């Protein structure tokens, strides 16, 4: 099943990446022949949904399934349930995908040009919302199955510490259950009935708030699996072992507690939300930096330890001793490096008054191509080089391509994302097909807009090339005959300071989940009450299909 999950994830990655390069060329004006301007948003919806919903969810579901069964050394609790969630998620993907691609042709009367944030009152065809809901429901079923697997292990191991990887999976899933409540309520109670015509209007600000309740923690749903890799697998690839097991657990608990009550930081410039709520969200957001900063420390320390085990010396000389030619290592390490840069631009986004400068500009995609687009995506690609041979029993194909791939991604992303950040500062908006307007020009403090556009396009092409290299390696691996010498070693060494040294209360998942819910109630109780206070559907808006607009334009 891990194999099937990965296969779907890679297909989504390929298609999403194709859309990405089309966007990069189209919006910079380098080549506009693929699509008409108004179809740009269909492509962009596809890019967002395929990459941040389909690719990540399938990959993570597979990765977690492996992490739980491998670290507990037991089979999954219910094979039947595993098939169920896979099918639910696949069906959801097909429905949502049909709705999106329907926007490109007149043959089918469906479309969903609403981007992956689907803000009401722009409306998509109902099957888009139903598909999205099924993907999430499928992920819940998967989560429940990991928990059941853990409980059955618990019966035979009453006093043992939860193995680190399983602990990380369970904490991440708890976070996910809490976070997805917002979007589930939004889609099930408001958008689906509204798109079907069962209710006539929804409150755009309320649905938007519910979306962002989910919209920020979802990024931790992408990052925490990358952290799992960095904490448990990367140190070993570097030749050493994790520094501290206990600290890793603390970091995950902090994520569980802090990642949900922050969504308002995406709504700093929304009217209708009092300043105080925004301020609370900002303080939480800033504290959410803590676990990431701790991770940076531990992961770097563990890698350094590994390098010194391999004979590296000197203040920075140890860097040379690392296995840069091992793509699983280099991808994860480069991803971590880019994440540091993304962390800095994230701190800027989080500052509520600086946010005025960058909100909804190209700065924002510049930022998250470093975080989810690299920290998560490149780590997932890299670890596939290590994991896919293990789960398929087939040796890795095209090894030299695999070794080069992470570096191509890195260079492409440096070009694209740094130019996007700068263009954003000049005021160039995100999500727009042709950001060239009559009557004014963008002025940049440094470098010209034309030069930034070329960098974005060039970076986008390199990223796409890198993606093709990755897919070729995976294809070749899936085609390789079984057996032979796998070049990977799947043993993971224990941490330098093991779980025995850390307080047992860390393993009390219910306690942490309870506190997390409490924090959410504190941060969201009042704002939601005031939004709902004037009526659940008021001030309301009826659906506006995005395509009607096309007829006018």
């Amino acid at each position: 099943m891990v194999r099937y999950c990965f296969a779907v994830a890679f297909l989504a990655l390929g298609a999403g990446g194709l859309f990405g390069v089309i966007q990069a060329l189209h919006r910079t004006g380098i080549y506009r022949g693929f699509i008409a301007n108004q179809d740009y948003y269909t492509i962009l919806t596809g890019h967002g949904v395929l990459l941040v919903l389909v690719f990540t969810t399938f990959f993570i579901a597979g990765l977690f399934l492996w992490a739980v069964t491998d670290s507990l050394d037991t089979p999954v609790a219910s094979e039947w349930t595993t098939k169920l969630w896979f099918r639910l998620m696949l069906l959801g993907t097909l429905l949502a995908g049909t709705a999106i691609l329907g926007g490109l042709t007149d043959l089918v009367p469906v479309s969903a040009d609403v981007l992956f944030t689907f803000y009401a009152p722009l409306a998509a065809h109902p099957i888009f919302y139903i598909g999205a809901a099924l993907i999430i429901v499928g992920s819940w079923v998967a989560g429940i199955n990991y928990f059941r697997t853990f409980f059955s292990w618990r019966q035979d191991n009453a006093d043992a510490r939860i193995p680190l990887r399983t602990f990380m999976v369970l904490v991440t899933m708890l976070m996910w259950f809490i976070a997805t409540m917002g979007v589930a309520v939004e889609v099930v109670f408001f958008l689906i009935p509204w798109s079907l015509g069962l209710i006539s209007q929804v409150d755009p600000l309320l649905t938007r708030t519910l979306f962002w309740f989910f919209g920020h923690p979802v990024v931790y749903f992408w990052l925490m699996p990358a952290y799992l890799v960095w904490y448990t697998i990367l140190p070993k690839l570097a030749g050493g072992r994790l520094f501290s097991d206990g600290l890793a657990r603390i970091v995950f608990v902090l994520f569980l507690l802090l990642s949900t009550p922050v969504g308002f930081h995406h709504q700093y410039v929304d009217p209708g939300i009092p300043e105080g709520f925004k301020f609370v969200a900002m303080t939480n957001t800033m504290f959410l930096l803590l676990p990431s900063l701790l991770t940076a420390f531990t992961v770097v320390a563990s890698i350094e330890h590994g390098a010194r085990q391999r004979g590296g010396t000197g203040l920075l000389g140890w860097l040379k001793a690392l296995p840069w030619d091992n793509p699983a290592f280099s991808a994860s390490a480069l991803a971590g490096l880019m994440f540091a840069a993304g962390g800095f631009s994230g701190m800027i986004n989080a500052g509520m008054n600086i946010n005025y400068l960058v909100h909804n500009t190209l700065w924002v995609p510049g930022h998250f191509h470093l975080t989810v687009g690299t920290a998560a995506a490149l780590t997932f690609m890299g670890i596939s080089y290590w994991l896919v041979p293990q789960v398929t029993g087939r040796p890795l194909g095209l090894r030299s391509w695999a070794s080069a791939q992470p570096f191509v991604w890195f260079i492409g992303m440096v070009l694209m994302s740094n130019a996007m950040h700068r263009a954003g500062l000049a005021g160039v908006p995100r999500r727009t097909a042709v950001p060239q307007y009559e009557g004014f020009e963008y002025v940049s403090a440094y470098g010209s807009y034309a030069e930034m556009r070329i960098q974005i396009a060039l970076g986008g092409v390199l990223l796409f090339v890198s993606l093709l290299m990755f897919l070729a390696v995976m294809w070749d691996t899936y085609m390789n005959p079984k057996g032979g010498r796998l070049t990977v070693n799947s043993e993971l060494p224990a941490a330098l300071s093991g779980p025995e040294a850390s307080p047992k209360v860390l393993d009390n998942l219910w306690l942490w989940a309870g506190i997390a819910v409490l924090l959410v109630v504190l941060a969201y109780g009042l704002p939601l009450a005031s939004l709902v206070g004037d009526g659940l559907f008021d001030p309301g808006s009826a659906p506006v299909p995005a395509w009607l607009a096309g007829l006018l334009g």
Partner: protein
Amino acid sequence: MEIHRFEKAWLGFALLLIVGLIATITYGAVGPGVAMISDSGGTIDSSALGEHEQFSDPGVRQVGENEYDVYVVAQQFIFRPGTNEPITLPADSTVTFHVASADVIHGFSITGTNVNTMAIPGQVSKITVEFDDPQTYGLVCHEYCGAAHHEMAGTIEVVPQSEFSIEGTDSGVADLTDEDADADGGEN
């Protein structure tokens, strides 16, 4: 649990950084007074802007010496005013924008400034800004609002005081009704 000496130092540094960031932003809000978009604009029936006191005839109103209110309607795919005719304002003035959407969510961002807000149906966004020197600014819709989103833009022209006059007959100082005074009383 054993926490390594370097780990402790790093933890301290991280906490310091976080508290520092919060402190600078708080200072920004209470010191120079960078006000946030908030709920002070109030709510509105977005399907009936035509019947609204101000939004039925959006535009610039003078509300004091060097103080102006600008009412803007954002709709697929124009700003009224802004797109078909520029929003003209005098230099050295304090301007409060009131933005309402007539249909879907739009953005309202003046390039090169920190005027940046969402226009959400049902809500009025209110943001105050000072314009010093004469200059032409771009106004863009930076939230996807439909198939011609990329065409939704406008300009803001800040002209020397001497060249400024409010055109039209019914939108001058005379328009300063009690309603306006009220809206202004609740300044950010």
